[in-house]
Structure formats: C-alpha cells, structure tokens
C-alpha cells in the first residue's frame, strides 16, 4: 500500500516538476507546480511529517500559489520566445544538471548511512505533530524561529515598498527609453 502511494506521488511530483520547466505559458507552469506541491505533501505524509504536509498545503498551495496566479494574471501570460540567443547555456545546462544528479545519486547510494536502506526507525505516535515541532521551535530552535519571523517582517515591508505606486508619479513611466533595461 505504502509503495503504491509512494510511486503514484513520486510520478506526480516528477511530472509536475517537468511540466513546470517545459510549459511555455507561465500559467500552465503554475498549475503544474500545484500538482507537484500536492504530490509532495503526500510524500511528507508518508514520511510521517504531518505538520509539514499540512503547512505545505496551506502555505504553498493555499497562499503562495494564489499569489503566483494573481501575478501571472496581472502581468499577463507572456510565453517565452521560441528562440534562445544563449544557445550555449541552453545546451550545457541540462548536462551540468545531469552531472550533479548523478553525483548526488552516487553519494546517496554510496553513503553507507546506517538507516538509509530502511523505512526509518519506529517512532512514537506523536512524531511530526504540530505540538512536537512547536515545542522544538520554542526551545531548541528559538533563535532561528525569531530570526525567521524577523525575516518575514522584512519581506513584508520590502514587498510593500516594491509594489507601492510612486505617489508623485501620476503615470507609470520607465526612466529610460523603452526597450532598454533599467
């Protein structure tokens, strides 16, 4: 049963990821990402990371994806042009990524970690529950917790500054002649 769920979720996650990369329309990319994220949440559940799975669904699928969709709708579904001037990058990038993939896989399989060939040790019923993680956040990881909350605050303020309309400019104008970046 677990294996079946794993393979279904894994295929969906991989398919979603590939879809993100190959769809030319950003809107479809976002939709693929949603599939990928939900599949990943299922995998988290299989790993008994229940709170993580819930957070994945709520934060990513619920909030972040909505943001993406809004922005794509705002900016417009601009598809990538078919021709790529940087053919060198385009050609070599998959090679490098493939090399890295092979390296990581070799590292994983050859790592000799003790429990890597098992499903992991038996854990108590509360493993991965919000209370367990929350307790860690308020004890062992208090400092990272505070830092991360501060980071969120900074991001919120930064987003407001970026998205705010310049009150003095009546009409949005580019500061340089059109067609030139910045």
């Amino acid at each position: 049963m677990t294996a079946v769920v794993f393979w279904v979720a894994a295929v969906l996650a991989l398919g979603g990821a590939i879809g993100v990369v190959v769809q030319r329309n950003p809107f479809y990319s976002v939709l693929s990402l949603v599939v990928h994220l939900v599949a990943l949440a299922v995998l988290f559940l299989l790993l008994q990371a229940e709170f993580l799975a819930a957070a994945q669904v709520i934060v990513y699928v619920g909030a972040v994806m909505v943001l993406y969709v809004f922005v794509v709708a705002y900016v417009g579904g601009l598809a990538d042009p078919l021709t790529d001037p940087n053919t060198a990058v385009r050609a070599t990038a998959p090679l490098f990524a493939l090399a890295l993939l092979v390296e990581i896989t070799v590292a994983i399989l050859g790592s000799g970690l003790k429990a890597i060939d098992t499903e992991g040790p038996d854990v108590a019923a509360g493993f991965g529950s919000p209370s367990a993680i929350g307790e860690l956040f308020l004890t062992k990881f208090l400092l990272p917790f505070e830092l991360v909350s501060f980071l969120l605050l900074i991001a919120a303020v930064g987003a407001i500054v970026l998205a705010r309309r310049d009150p003095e400019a009546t009409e949005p104008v580019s500061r340089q002649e059109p067609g030139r970046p910045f």
Partner: protein
Amino acid sequence: MSPAAYGWLVLAFPLAGSILIALLWRSLPGRTAGWIGSAAILLSFLSAVGALVQLQDRSEHERQLTSSLWDYASTAGLDVKLGILVDPLAVFMCLVVSGVSFLIHLYSVAYMASDRGYRRYFSYLNFFVFSMLLLVLAGNFVILIVGWAFVGFASYALISFWYRRRTATYAGMKAFVINVIGDVGLVLAAIILQRDLGTLDLPTVFARAPEVFERNEWLIVAVCLLILVGAFAKSAQIPLHTWLPDAMEGPTPVSALIHAATMVTAGVYLIARMHPLFELAPTAADISAAIGALTLVFAASVALVVTDLKRIIAYSTISQIGYMVMGVSIAAYSAGMFHLMTHAFFKALMFMAAGSVIAAMAGQQDIDRMSGLRRAMPRTFVAFLVAAMALSAFPGFSGYFSKDEILAFAAERGGGYWILYAAGTVAALMTAFYAFRMIFRVFGGEPSEEARELEQGHIHHAEPVNPVTGEPEDTDVGYPGPEHHIAERDREMWIAMSVLMVLSVVGGVLQIPGVTHAIEHFLDPTFADSRFADTNVSGNLEALALVVGGLCSLAGIGLAYLLYVRMPGSTLALADRLRPLHRFLERKWYFDELYGVLVVRPLRALGEWSSTVFERVVIQGMVGSATAAVRTGSTIVRVAQSGLLRYYALLLLAGVGGLALYFLLVSR
C-alpha cells in the same frame, strides 16, 4: 619607613608635579606652575635626605636595598620587575640631582616668568627630574633603559622648547638622534647580558658576571663597549659629543640643569654603576679612560677660541665630564662621583650667572659684544667669579680637591696612566685660562652700551633675534618671552645662585685629601667589591697633584690676565700668527666636517640614489607590475561578469557539481 619607601617617594613627587602641571595648565595663574614644580622637587630632595638618614642608620652590609612595586613580565628565563635599587651610590646621585634641580627650578620661576610656555616648561622640567631619578634608582636594566630614554626625550623636548626657532628644533633632533644611538648600545648590552646571565636584575648581574665571564673575555669587553656607547652619547664624549654645544639652544636654566649639572653626568653614573663589569673588562675601562682624557683635552682646547658664551660653558662641560669619565674608568669611583657633585654645583652656578648676563644683553650671547658688565651686575659678577674659580680649580675651591683627586689616582695607578695625568694637567691649565677669559672679557674692560644702560637702571631691550642666525623672532609662544630677568632684580634667582655659591666654595670640604673622606666612606658599600677598594693614593702623589693643580690654575689665570687685561688685543695678533691652529680649534677639530664626510654625505648619497634609482626603477616597477597584473587579471575575470542571470546560475551549478565531484573523489 625603609630607605626603599623614601626611594619611591623621591620618584613620586616629580612625576606627580609633572602630571599636575600638565593637566591643570589652563587654570594655573601667574607663577603657580613654577612654585608647584619647585615644591615637588623640594619634596623629592627631602625624601632623598630621608633615604640618606635611614641608610646611615643601617650597618654597612645592609645598605643595598631593592624594592619592586609589581612584575612587568615574569616568564621562563625573563623576570622584569618595576624595581628600584637603593644604595649609597643611588642616594648620592638622588641628592645631587634633586638638590641642584630644586635650585634651578627656583631660578627658573623668575627667569622664565614672561615666557608664554611657562607651564609647559615646568611640566617638562619636572618630567626630566623624574626620568633622571628613575634612571638613577633603576633596579634592573629595563627600568634603567626606560629612564635613559625618558631622559633623552626630556632633553629633546627642552632643547626644542622654543619650537618656532628653527635652529632649536634642529638641535633637538640632533641631540635625540645621538641619544638614541646611545640607547641602542645600552639595549644591545642588556640583551647580551640577559642571554648569558639569564637575568636583567642589576645586583644579580653583578654577582653572576664573574662566574660566567673570564676576565677580559671578548664578550664582556663587547658588553662594556656597548655600555660605553650609551654612556658616551649621554655624556657627550668623543665621538658622540657634537650634540651638546648645539643643545645650548634651549633656555639657559635648561642648559644649567640638563646639559651641565645632571643629565650629562648620567654616563658617569652608568660607568660607576657598572663597575663590576668594567673591572672584568679592563680593556674597555682603559679605552674609556683614554677617550675621557682625549675628550677633556679636546673640549678644553675648543673652549679657548669659541666666542658664544653658552657654547664656551658647554665645551667646558664636555671637558669636565671627560675628567669624571676618566676617573670612574680608572676605578677612582669616589673621586669621580665627588667631581660630579662639585661640578654640578659650580657649573649650574656658572650657567645661572651666564643666563643673567645674556638677559642683560637682551639675548645676545657673543662675548665679543660683551664687556665691562662688572659694575652694572655686581651680584652676577660675584657668582660668575666663584664659579670660574671653582672651575679652574683655584686652591681652596671645591673643584680644586675633586679634580686633583682624580689626577692623583691616575698617578697612583702609574705606568701608562701617567699619560692621563699629563692630559688632565694640560687641560687644567687651559680650563683656568678659558674660565678667566670669560671673566675678563665679559666683566672687565670698558662698559659696553648695554652695561651703561643697565648702570642707569634700564635693562637693554632689542628687537629679538636668534643669537645664532640673526633671524628676527617674536615673543609669542614658541619663542623666548619678551622680558629679561637678571639676578640683580629677581630674588628667586639670587637665592638659588647664593646657595650654589656657598656650595661651590665649601663643597670641597667633604673630601679634602688626607683630612676628610666623607664621600669615600659613604659610597664605600657600593664599591666595596672593587679590586681597587683598598688602593689608597700615597701622600706624596696627592701632594704632587694638589701642588701641580694649584700651579696650573694660577698659571692659567695669570696667562688670561696677561693676555686680556695687560695686553688687550694681543690675542688677535696671536690668532693671526697661529692661523692654522686657531682655525683648527675654531672648527672644533673638524668633527662636524668629519661626520659630514663619513656619515651625512654617504647617507645623503644613499638617499638620493634611493629616490632616483631605487624608487624609480624598483619600487615603481613593483607597483607598476602589480597594477598591470591586477588589470590583466581583472580583464580576464570580467568576461565572467556577463550580467546574464542564467549564465551565473550555470556557473554556480558547475561549481556545486565540481565541489560534489571533489568530495566524492576524496571520500573514495
């Protein structure tokens, strides 16, 4: 209180005075700074007296005390304490230094009264006294070197006291550079001693040195010669004497205190303090004695022809220190220290009187311009006369007993030391001559314009000019003050001079050959381990030295009388007849020229070569190739900065891949 506690007090008062004046200088009205400085030195002198009394209460074997406040560095093989050594020699020097310093402070209270740098002056002066006492009381080489360097700095600061006078700042630099040469010698000597004896503590060094070093072994001779470099630089002995005449650019009381009475005798003190080492290295001691003899003849001969009043006295100082260096080098320790003391009295007095004369001449220092000041300045005349008689070893005056005791000891050593005796005697003749040359030319003859003005109750005031170069000066800060103070009018100056007059006359009774031996007995515990402790000068030789010394003195005075009073103008004819000799003396034996050829010109050539060839080719070549390398490298690296985000991501990924590959290979 123990003598050591008094020793700390001796140090504490001048330091406190210096800091107090330096911090409060804004809020000290009028002459307060001067009085604070004088009081600090007086308290220091009283503490020295306390140490003396306490020391005399102890038995002879317990008169050498050490005391330390805290450890500076206490590690394996090195143990440096902030420690002092209180023994009869140190207490003797403390008494002389603080006593004379107090009188000169008192003199300065009036003499410097109109100077804009009045408070700075007293802060420096107190700091100097502190440094000198630190040097004298030092219990180990580190403190000794610290005091030694502080004294050098204080001397620099006071020579350059009128810092807007170009000649004064140059003289300060010259003095400092030569003093630093001496510091280096002393430091090197200390390093060798630390290496071979494992300690820097003075009593321990003296105790261990005979166990480690053979007599006259080359290493201990080298150590002693390095110590001599330090001693000669401070004491202005050949070949490091050139700074002292130029040091006369400082205010006259400074010349009296530092460049006549105390600081320049530090070298003599050092040799006396290091006597256990010098007795291990008789070769070095003999070299020192020979240089002392050479210096005393040289300086006395130059003093015959110099016409700047303060420079005559400066050369006289060099000459007299030559006597002391000779004395302590031939193991006549108590005689050398005795001469150090009497010289401090009469030379300080002579400078004070000279300061009074120069003030009356409105800053003019050339004795060619002075004449007939006797009636206008009776007090100054008496003081100068007493000092000159003591200097020329007139029978009965203090200089008579102290100098002739050194010469008698040289005669007692016999053999080659008779040469030293002869040199000292010839120089004594010259000393008497130039001392009274000053008297007859400054105070005798027809009154000069300034003297007549003073007789009518006015001190001459002229447009202030630099006495050396004739450049105009103002009286603002960094220059001499506008007023002139003379002993006839200022009570403080006259009191200080009176005390020194009494001391110059009667100072000799402490040790009249064959009658009293106060200083010898007092210093005995320090020098008890000397090989010459039991050497007593035979009565015949002492009588010989006294008679010959007295005759020399009288002959020199008589000759001066003959040439300057009975036959005025004859000296000019004499100088014409002996032009090469006169020129040789006037150019100070061509020492400055010699240094110009040996040191200054090669260094300047090296500097010019460095700035034209080395700088242009090597340095600029290095800089140029460095910038070229950076520029080339950055041109290559700039290619990577394409501004394309995806390209950066690719590089990043390639880097991560490479790193992962590396770790995989390493872990294999």
